[in-house]
């Protein structure tokens, strides 16, 4: 028996198993267990105000979510927020990457400065933008007043039509640098001869971008789109710090709904079920993007 095992798993395999064991063990405890446990929770009606009563309800939590109009509201808010954040981040990142891919005086310094927002912790980022938008001391108010675009200070985050966009703006500010960096790396790999060939063939700047840069950028764009979608769809900290889902339900997103359901209403069962729905949505969206862009590479 042992001899057979030895033959099947030779020295290399066994030492490899021993070497990866610590990592696998840690992952089992901190990743696999919570994922499985939260799935178990999502199948039970667990409410923390009655901790001893935890009946098995099967898919009832999931069914209840889809009948909950708060859920659908949150889905629409999250969709708007995610689409705006991802699109603006990606477009800006492409433009910034195009700029920083050129050589000009100060280009290195600018590249370094670019990383500052990315290095800022997101709580700090949230607080910073909250102050910028502040109705009494805010920089935005001061600036717009000085330029003459507004006549008196406004409570920016109190405007339900603007809130989501203003939070998205804070998110873009933090996320764009990494996206730009990823795209610059992809751009650097485009052979110069392709641009030279395109120039000789008669392509203008825009045509060179469309026919040379953009196709070569696909792998980078895919990475950026998947990553930014995954991040944005699950954003939570900015909402906690800046608006807490308000004003009214103007920034009531899925992750905020999950937080409220789980930690304010203490309904762990439905909270866990919602988390699973969000995770599945994230997974499916990423898969769709990879399918869409990946097959053309």
């Amino acid at each position, binding site marked *: 028996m042992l001899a057979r095992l030895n033959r099947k798993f030779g020295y290399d395999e066994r030492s490899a198993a021993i070497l990866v064991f610590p990592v696998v063990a840690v992952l089992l405890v901190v990743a696999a267990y919570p994922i499985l446990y939260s799935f178990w929770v999502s199948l039970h009606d667990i409410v923390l105000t009655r901790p001893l009563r935890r009946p098995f309800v099967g898919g009832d939590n999931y069914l209840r979510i889809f009948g909950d109009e708060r859920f659908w509201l949150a889905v629409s808010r999250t969709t708007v927020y995610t689409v705006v954040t991802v699109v603006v981040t990606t477009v800006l990142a492409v433009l910034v990457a195009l700029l920083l891919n050129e050589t000009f005086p100060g280009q290195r310094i600018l590249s370094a400065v670019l990383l500052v927002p990315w290095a800022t912790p997101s709580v700090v980022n949230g607080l910073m933008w909250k102050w910028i938008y502040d109705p009494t001391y805010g920089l935005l108010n001061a600036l717009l007043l000085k330029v003459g675009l507004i006549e008196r200070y406004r409570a920016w985050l109190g405007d339900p039509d603007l809130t989501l966009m203003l939070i998205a703006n804070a998110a873009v500010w933090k996320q764009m640098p990494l996206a730009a960096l990823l795209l610059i790396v992809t751009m650097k790999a485009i052979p110069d001869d392709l641009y030279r060939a395109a*120039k000789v063939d*008669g392509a203008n700047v825009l045509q060179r971008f469309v026919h040379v840069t953009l196709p070569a950028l696909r792998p980078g764009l895919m990475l950026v789109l998947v990553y930014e979608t995954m991040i944005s769809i699950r954003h939570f900290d900015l909402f906690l710090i800046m608006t807490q889902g308000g004003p009214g339900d103007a920034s009531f997103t899925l992750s905020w709904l999950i937080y409220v359901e789980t930690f304010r209403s203490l309904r762990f069962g439905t909270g866990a079920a919602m988390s699973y729905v969000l995770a599945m949505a994230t997974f499916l969206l990423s898969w769709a993007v990879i399918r869409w862009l990946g097959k053309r590479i």
Partner: protein
Amino acid sequence: MAAITCEKLTKRYGSVTAVDRLDLAIGHGEFMVLLGPSGCGKTTTLNMIAGLEEITDGTLRFDATDVTWQPPHKREVAMVFQSYALYPNKTVRENIAFPLQLRRTPRAEVERAVADVSEQLEIAHLLDRHPSQLSGGQRQRVALGRAIVRKPSVFLMDEPLSNLDAALRLSMRSLIKHLHQRLQATFVYVTHDQAEAMTLADRIAVMRGGLIQQLDTPDGIYSRPANTFVASFLGSPPINLVEGEIAADGRFARGALRLDLPPGAVAPGRAVTLGLRPEDVAAPAPGLASLEARVTLVSPLGSETLLEVVAPGDVALTLRVPKEWRVRHGDSMTFGIDPARLHLFDRQTEARL
């Protein structure tokens, strides 16, 4: 067709001068090869003709038109790159059609042109593939197709064969030569490969350090090299260069070595470098100078034999002799040399005497 005239063409990068006041007139339909080692300025010159590199100083004319400040697409040139530079996301068909599409050529005409070109280059069966699915030789054919499809008056080629293996290089070389004969266009071809230069060119411009060393026909460059650099750059195996003096009797002297020169060639006492092409030896005969040497290495090539010999004065030479000569390692033999075929260069200036 177009004639290309470079007048005092100069390219400087900061304090580095890549091309220095280059004068070059390339005729209608001429095949001009720019030959030189890397860093000699040949590619920079080509890029300036293409419009890919801004001209620091001087004038560039296509026929009578000053194109010094014209962007590449206005110059009606086509270019083939060493890296092929095919658009990786486009099929072969789309690659070839691209320059025409940019010119808003009607679709039917594009299709006809692509079919025609792919027929000529024997790549018709590859039209729907992507460049990544092609071999190096096929890729370069596609690149050639993309260049000829819009019938430009000037073809610029930047080491187009350098990425190909030896056998393929030979067949592509004759393909390019055929293309030139058929298209009757002006070709400017950059290479560091002397065999390519010799076989393809109507005229060769040998470059070094941003300057043209010699501009002549392949035969002129080979048989009358302007200086030791040109002499040693062309020919395989390379020319034998021996430093020495002109003796009082008018012969070349280096230690114990004496060689007859054409009468009155150079004044006695002058420090010179003697050039002897490996193939310029024969059996001893009247009217030929004779050279005694000991054979140290015999390398048969099949069609002929390469010999490494040591002549008096410890002068090591490489010689190429007919395969019929039965030579063995260690033999001492006498070679006949036609004095008229020897090359003499000034040792200081390296220029031909």
